[in-house]
């Protein structure tokens, strides 16, 4: 027990790897054994991550949002000659992403049971390795280790798309690989830039993120700007921000269902995580310099993604473009550089993982039955599949921001944070919400409503128990965040406030709660100047 408490992050990180290694020793033709093993370790991976937030008895320490430092830290020497360490830890930024990863991992593995019939052994091994890669990205406290995981994770994803994908899988896989690789090369340069500059200043060679978080903001503004762009491309491609998004529709469309779930649910978040963890707190001056550009790129992504969504004929492609739009909200919230924008953004990342993950599962359910993703091949499915219809409707509503479901809380908080900086930005964001309703409901209508138009759809079986098991937890979480998001904000808020303190030190100089306008002074607070960029209103007064 004590060992588990001390090394919980390593246990979380390597549980999937242990499973993968064990599976190496089992013969490939024993497919069901691999299925059970894969699911066992997927589920185990989720269960061992729960003690981060659930007490396991008297002396168990769960995550404490009040602490400012990283928690559950493990830190040992790894490659002393270059100063790389094996350092892991979580804070409010990474905790929820870690939990999301383990949950979606388990669900994605469960959803593959009957969908994957070829090379079953290799499939589950790669899925488990992918889990470790992604968890490593969120857990690493050492830039070198971070980079290793960032790259390692590409490989299983590449094979998942390239081997188990559909028709154009090779094109999609290579495109995905090259796009991300191009970004990460620049990131490597930026990391080395920090590494050597820090060494030059102090004589210490270290990749330690905690150290660099304190040191890098002191670098010269010119260097900060170079570092910003170096990191930017890696993260922007991952998010993906407009116009680096075109790998996403292809990768999503071609990937197997579980791959799409992980891709949308977790992989994209590595980009926004990068912004939140590195770009914004480490390079506050550069971020302030470029925040306007970033905001406008985000707004373009929101509207552009939603519009392109509208006319898609392939369900998966439609949902892929909707991710571009939704992630636009996340980056919009980040670069508004206000506490609400940042908190909302992180919550929205979780929300997007849940609801878009569920949407891909839903397409997967249909694909497995009919082997097509074309909207025109469906229609009237409400009649044969009522249970599916109900869950699909709830998930669509969650995604389009219906109150009492999760998406609303995220979008509302983001836009509220954006609004205090610039009203026009918020107004453009709300346009995205209007369009979101249009494309999601239209999709739902074309797939579910009307008479059954294709004979082969008339007797499609409704969801089976395993499919319910993959979808219901996500639906429950959607409701939870929609109705009672407080526990989530309690985790998210403190680190976001620290970020704002770094980037906008003036933000909290004035009492954060604005006083009610006094009888005579109301004109002062009302003459808002739209277009006042990244200066919070408190500074204007």
């Amino acid at each position: 027990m004590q060992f588990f408490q001390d090394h919980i992050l390593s246990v979380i990180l390597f549980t999937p790897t242990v499973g993968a290694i064990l599976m190496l020793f089992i013969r490939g033709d024993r497919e069901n054994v691999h299925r059970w093993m894969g699911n066992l370790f997927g589920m185990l991976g989720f269960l061992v991550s729960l003690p981060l937030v659930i007490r396991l008895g008297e002396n168990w320490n769960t995550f404490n949002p009040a602490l400012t430092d990283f928690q559950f830290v493990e830190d040992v020497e790894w490659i002393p000659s270059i100063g790389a360490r094996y350092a892991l830890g979580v804070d409010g930024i990474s905790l929820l992403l870690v939990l999301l990863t383990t949950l979606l991992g388990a669900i994605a593995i469960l959803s593959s049971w009957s969908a994957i019939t070829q090379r079953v052994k290799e499939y589950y091994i790669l899925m488990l390795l992918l889990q470790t890669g992604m968890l490593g990205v969120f857990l690493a406290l050492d830039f070198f280790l971070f980079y290793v995981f960032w790259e390692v994770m590409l490989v299983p994803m590449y094979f998942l798309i390239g081997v188990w994908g559909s028709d154009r899988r090779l094109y999609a896989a290579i495109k995905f690989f090259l796009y991300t690789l191009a970004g990460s090369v620049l990131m490597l340069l930026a990391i080395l830039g920090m590494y050597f500059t820090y060494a030059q200043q102090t004589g210490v060679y270290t990749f330690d993120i905690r150290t660099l978080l304190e040191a890098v903001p002191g670098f010269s503004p010119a260097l900060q700007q170079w570092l910003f762009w170096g990191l930017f491309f890696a993260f922007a491609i991952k998010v993906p921000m407009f116009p680096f998004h075109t790998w996403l529709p292809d990768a999503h469309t071609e990937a197997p269902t579980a791959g799409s779930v992980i891709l949308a649910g977790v992989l994209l978040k590595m980009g926004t995580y990068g912004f939140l963890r590195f770009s914004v707190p480490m390079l506050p001056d550069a971020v302030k310099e470029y925040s306007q550009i970033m905001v406008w790129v985000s707004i373009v992504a929101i509207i552009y993604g939603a519009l392109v969504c509208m006319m898609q004929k392939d369900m998966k492609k439609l949902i892929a473009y909707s991710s571009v739009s939704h992630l636009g909200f996340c980056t919009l919230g980040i670069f508004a550089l206000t506490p609400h924008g940042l908190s909302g953004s992180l919550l929205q990342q979780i929300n997007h993982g849940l609801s878009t993950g569920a949407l891909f599962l839903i397409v997967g359910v249909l694909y497995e039955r009919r082997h097509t993703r074309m909207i025109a091949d469906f229609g009237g499915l409400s009649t044969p599949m009522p249970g599916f219809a109900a869950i699909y409707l709830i998930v669509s509503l969650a995604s389009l921001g219906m109150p009492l479901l999760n998406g609303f809380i995220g979008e509302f908080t983001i836009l509220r944070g954006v609004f205090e900086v610039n009203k026009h930005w918020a107004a453009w964001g709300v346009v995205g919400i209007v369009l979101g309703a249009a494309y999601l409901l239209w999709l739902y209508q074309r797939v579910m409503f009307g008479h059954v138009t294709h004979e082969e759809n008339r007797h499609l079986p409704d969801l089976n128990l395993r499919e319910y098991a993959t979808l219901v937890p996500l639906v429950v979480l959607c409701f939870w965040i929609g109705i009672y998001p407080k526990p989530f904000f309690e985790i998210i808020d403190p680190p976001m406030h620290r970020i704002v303190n770094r980037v906008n030190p003036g933000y909290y100089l004035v009492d954060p709660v604005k006083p009610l306008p006094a009888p005579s002074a109301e004109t002062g607070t009302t003459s808002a100047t739209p277009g006042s960029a990244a200066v919070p209103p408190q500074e204007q007064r």
Partner: protein
Amino acid sequence: MLLLEHLWILLALPLAGAAANGLFGRHWSKRTVDAVAVGASGLAFAAALELWREFAQLTAAELPWVRSYFSWIVAGEFRADFALQVDQLTLVMVLVVTGVSWLIHIYSTGYMAGDAGYARFFAYLNLFLFFMLLLVMAANYPLLFVGWEGVGLSSYLLIGFWFLRKSAADAGKKAFIVNRIGDFGFLLGIFLLYWTFSAADFRSVFAAVRQMPVETEAGVLTAIGLLLLAGAVGKSAQLPLYVWLPDAMEGPTPVSALIHAATMVTAGVYVVARSAVIFVHAPLAQDAVAVIGCLTAVYAATIGLVQTDIKRVLAYSTISQLGYMFLACGVGAFAAGIFHLMTHAFFKALLFLAAGSVIHALGGEQDIRRMGGLRRKIPWTYGTMLVATLAIAGAPLFSGFFSKDAILFAAYASGQQLLWGLGTLGAVLTAFYMFRLIFLVFHGQPRFDEQAVHVHESPRVMTVPLVVLAVLSVVGGWLAAPKLWGGADLLERFLTPVLEAPAWLAAFPAEELHALELRLSGAAVLAAALGFLAAWWLYLQQPEKPAMLAARYAAPYRLLWNKYYVDELYAAAVVRPLLWLSERVLWQKVDVAVIDGAANGAAHTARRLGDQLRRMQSGNARSYAAWVIVGAAIVTAALVWWVQ
């Protein structure tokens, strides 16, 4: 004080009903589904009555009565509690909503009997009741918005209830999206409210607004008012966002009665009245309310003149009547607006239910050109529908007479004679299209195949709610009756703590006011009589005349018949260009051709470059030697240049 402490019980009842029928209704008998659904709504109504009793014991200092149950959104310093409140306005709304809703639940057990989605229907209906109560009981704007979106969702589900019909599914989607366009304003309005006041709960916001001076030119309150109005215009189907409501008639008729006539569509009026303090402090926004309302009232009435689908006539009538409520709020007579909201809930619900009974009797027929002569065959339906028609037309002593009078009086007395004139014109049109409907449906000769259609009166569960609503359609207006004798309007007085009397009222001496009131009542009665006589002459005396008129004035007739071509205009100006832009430009050009083209082009170039470079490694010793010489020459040249 059980319910005052536990306001959530009112919400929990219909929510529990919705959950029970939604999850298990499929496996239950009709009787059980009925018991759950009608029971839930009936208990909600009983709870509302009990709430009223408890409310009466509160002192003025305790109002508004707010109970907060848990903190819903807490992000940084932003806070929105799950808090419910009761004041006079809420109480009136709760009573109307639960009462009408209960009657319509009962009626639906007859109307929807035998439908395959019976349990699903009642689950949605209860869900609607839950969200509607949340909307009127919410104590802050974000929570109100939850109810607001929730009723929109229920409406979407119920319009598209017969989802096998494409038109129904289309109509549901249209309603949702058009409402979302209004919500665009509503959401920004909430943000602006919060940005200005650092609070979004009614008590703090209104207290702060009261401290502010009236904005003589556009300021932040005007902006907030206009943004909230945008939401209200969407939900209450006013110009220019009314287009979804006529299509919403695709839903089952009880839904049209409950959601698209009596309750949900009045939510916009409720929000404007709830925010009365803001509008009073922003006269420009308030004028916008009045103008939009008045124009909508006349505009929709003109379309109603020529429609032939019984439900669509009523739909345009609803849009028009909602316009009157907006007009009332716009001239400062918020209480009159709520009064008309209440009487309208009674008589319009009755009109729809009676129309449903007609449709039921004719086996699904909705076209009034194929009706006629039904008055003896379905006497209960006829009698009750006639009462409702008299009420909406403003016949003296019927409820609509009092409430519409109050609105027209307010328009005139506030100095907006033009709006009063338009409103009175609208009253003429209202009487005309309503009696046209009555005459075409119930009088004259049957224009359907009497052999094929077996006309039958509806069962008791459907006629009893009709009778109850008919009674309410008459006596509902009597709350204001004392006014005729110079007394007090009871409802207005009840609502005064929330909705203050308009400022211009104080300018009038009491006796002058009363004289003016009587004169205007006379004018309104005259207007109604005019409309009635025109309909009587055209449809009973000279039944061949309408067709002749339509032929002679073909152009204006076609314009009205095609609803001013607004749907076509929106499709051509907004929907199609947007879809074209999405597909042809953004997707196929920007995404596929430009961005992907560039990426693939880069890949292609790299490959070609590699191909070229590959040729250098040909394995041919002489070519290697040549490259060595070229390389040496370049290096030498560089060295020479560098040394110099």
